[in-house]
């Protein structure tokens, strides 16, 4: 099942530069997308989300871009900091009001920010 794909297992960037993490999806029914960060031995931590009615959402250093026609989203981190080093997961779901929906996760990208 490859409905959500993160094709880069790892990414290294210099501190202060931009980190760009990419995610592709195949199920056109997905209409809500989330990014999570995960440190070893911890659970995923919610970072930022975007609805399919938008193409950009920004929260501090984190910006998520959604290209629905390409079924592609990306997470930009500017500027990158060493504390951002973690595994980043993209997840997708079907938007609904008032019901519990499963998240479908990508395989994750290990981001390493070098000092």
């Amino acid at each position, binding site marked *: 099942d490859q409905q959500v794909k993160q094709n880069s297992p790892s990414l290294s960037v210099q501190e202060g530069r931009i980190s760009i993490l990419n995610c592709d999806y195949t199920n056109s029914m997905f209409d*809500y997308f*989330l990014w*999570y960060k995960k440190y070893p*031995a*911890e*659970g*995923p*931590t*919610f970072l930022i*989300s975007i609805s399919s009615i938008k193409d950009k959402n920004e929260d501090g250093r984190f910006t998520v871009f959604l290209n629905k026609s390409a079924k592609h989203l990306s997470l930009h981190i500017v500027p990158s900091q060493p504390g951002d080093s973690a595994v980043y*997961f993209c*997840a997708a*779901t079907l*938007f*609904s*009001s*008032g*019901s*519990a*929906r*499963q*998240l*479908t*996760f*990508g*395989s*994750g990208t290990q981001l390493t920010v070098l000092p």
Partner: protein
Amino acid sequence: EPEVTQTPSHQVTQMGQEVILRCVPISNHLYFYWYRQILGQKVEFLVSFYNNEISEKSEIFDDQFSVERPDGSNFTLKIRSTKLEDSAMYFCASSEGGLLAETQYFGPGTRLLVL
């Protein structure tokens, strides 16, 4: 900041034994979830729970699995007769009602090892 908690953090059991994994969701949340991550694989959805009943379940969630909300704060996952392939990290998550139901907040996980 409110957070999802899980106990135990680690559990080792013999094949065929029953295990109960416990979670305390964020107090005002209405939707509850279990996910698992087998070592080296994606985070996979198991089950969602709302209003004291299962909302959705995956193919993984067979008759060996059950969930329960025994009181106003705990949410449990029971595996009746564990198999070697049940060894994984199990994550509990919760979300608010209404339009915020899609943002799920995860606990730190329980690492289950079946011998």
